[in-house]
């Protein structure tokens, strides 16, 4: 490295950090401000008097807590199903030679590239006729169809990296195909499984267009959709503090998940399997 690179590196780093984190800090700061403070003409960056009123209010709001529950339920179920199906499908794609394999892969990619909005109309009609409108499955199913392709592609790449010999060794050791898959291949593909799970969860957790269009009551409405129904006493002045608070609350699980899973996405888990 040349001299001076260190300094430039840190300046660049600080700039990027400020650029990315400033809005987040602003939202956090906003969530601690009182109603009166946010409606004044020239708000300052830090709250004059930090208050937890917003948090108390929002957690008492049963529509919001119910939306939180919906968000968790729908995202977790969609993630679980999507990862299980994607793992099986990706394994078949990585390991088996069958007709139409290319077709399956390109179809999956095509679905992933499909704009979500274009599906809203048809789904709305269809869900109403078959009574899936405003239900959990009504959201879980489209979420899965949008996250599966990505999960399959990610996982297939991971499976391809695992040496065939691992599995053959297991079979010679007396494992059935299923045992070899469960006890050797899946653990080795764990980083891929977690990556796919996180991507799927985030998609479902943050999704707005389908959530707002395919629900009508707090029964199945998720947080992003519910937030658009926050209206304060003054219709021309949205309750900024409340919205910020909801945003902070909805972000916390995401951060926890990333921190939890980060340690499990250990690259190079397979090193040492074969000669290094």
């Amino acid at each position, binding site marked *: 490295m040349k001299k001076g690179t260190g300094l430039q590196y840190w300046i660049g780093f600080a700039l990027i950090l400020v650029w990315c984190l400033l809005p987040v800090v602003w939202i956090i700061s906003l969530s601690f401000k009182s109603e009166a403070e946010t409606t004044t003409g020239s708000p300052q960056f830090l709250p004059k008097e930090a208050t937890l009123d917003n948090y108390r209010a929002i957690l008492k709001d049963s529509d919001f807590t119910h939306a939180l529950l919906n968000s968790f339920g729908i995202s977790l179920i969609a993630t679980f199903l999507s990862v299980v199906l994607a793992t099986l499908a990706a394994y078949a794609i990585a390991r088996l030679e069958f007709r139409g394999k290319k077709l399956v892969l390109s179809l999956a990619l095509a679905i992933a590239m499909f704009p979500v909005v274009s599906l809203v109309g048809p789904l709305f009609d269809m869900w109403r006729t078959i009574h899936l409108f405003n239900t959990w499955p009504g959201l879980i199913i489209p979420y899965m169809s949008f996250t599966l392709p990505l999960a399959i592609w990610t996982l297939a790449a991971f499976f391809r990296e695992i*040496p065939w*010999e691992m599995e053959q060794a297991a079979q010679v050791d*007396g494992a059935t195909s299923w045992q070899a898959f469960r006890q050797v291949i899946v*653990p*080795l593909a764990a980083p891929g499984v977690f990556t796919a799970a996180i991507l799927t969860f985030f998609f479902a957790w943050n999704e707005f267009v389908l959530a707002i269009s395919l629900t009508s009551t707090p029964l199945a409405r998720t947080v992003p959709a519910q937030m658009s129904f926050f209206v304060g006493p003054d219709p021309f002045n949205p309750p900024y503090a409340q919205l910020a608070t909801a945003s902070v609350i909805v972000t916390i699980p995401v951060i926890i998940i990333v921190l939890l899973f980060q340690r499990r996405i250990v690259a190079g*888990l*397979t090193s040492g*399997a*074969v*000669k290094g």
Partner: protein
Amino acid sequence: MAAIEMSHIDKRYDDGFHAVKDVNIDVQDGEFMILVGPSGCGKSTLLRMIVGLEDITSGDMVIGGKRVNDLAPRDRNLSMVFQNYALYPHMTVYENIAFPLRLQKMDNAQVDQKVRDAADLLELNEHLERRPANLSGGQRQRVAMGRAIVRDADAFLFDEPLSNLDAKLRGQMRTEISRLQKRLGITTVYVTHDQTEAMTLGDRVAVLKRGVLQQLASPRELYENPGNLFVAGFIGSPPMNFMPATLKGDQVELPFGSVSLPSHMRDMLKGRDGDLLIAGVRPEHFEDASLVDGGADDGATFSTKVDVVEWLGNETYAYIPFEAPPEVQSQLEQLEKDLDGESMRTQLVIALDGASGIKEGDEARIHMDVSKMHLFDPATGQNLTVDVEHAGTIPGLEVSTASA
């Protein structure tokens, strides 16, 4: 424990490639069998057909008296050590070795007992809680062996287990494998392309070339009585010398002069008078004439110019170039290709006693032990002077001698 009988085994891959052709090998109970041959000759394919990882196109694979062609690997009760070890990286050494036992649903106490026994045998005790990624090559190799021996398998299969180790470790592990096999007395099939491993480890060695079995015999038989040019050139290091030889009555004309044909070869070469053949003589069957007793009977002495001399202390290698006619030249070039291009220029490599004073550029007198010479048919590569009684099995030879 069990014998393994392969009869008329054929393998065609999906892309149509014919990798193994009509191979017959019987591995006796407790025997250490080596499959050897240059890269791509089908050794691994054959081994994988034994263990069940590759379908058998035709022929019968019989293990312990039972035809196993259609059995899955786990129903064959064999254990295998892979070239890359194929250890499970997410498990400790202990769990790696215990894996086959866990699959058998053995209870914990028994598993523990067996794993510790295997670890004792392989000196892995202090590494049991470590992960494969943190072990040295030799240690990983031993873990792979541990996983193979922990189960009471009917036979061990090894696919080039030492090829990833450095030379010194390879030597150590070779003796270790040999000791282990003798101690456990278990049927073993071992694939290698290294002829030293083949010679030192095997009770018997099967030499393969492009999917065809060339000869199946003990190391000594292969060395002293190779069935054809290919086996002769493959076994032994430095390799056997090949040179043109013309038959003239009881005399053989070699590039360095005429030698008289040993009596036991005369019958075998009937009707070949005047033919151009290939003579094969091992480097150690030459000697500095000044170091040989005058009384040596069937020897021949000739004088020639020595090109290069390599003195190794206990012995000296001398290189002597010669001219070969085109028929022989082309056959030798083909042979070189078959042997994976181990360089065989038309020169003699001869091993002299370390005491020999021959120097580069000298006009030296060299003695050759003619009784140890072999004569090969340049067209078929067949050894015309093979001692059939002491050459194990040479496929095709039984037929050709009967029809002759």
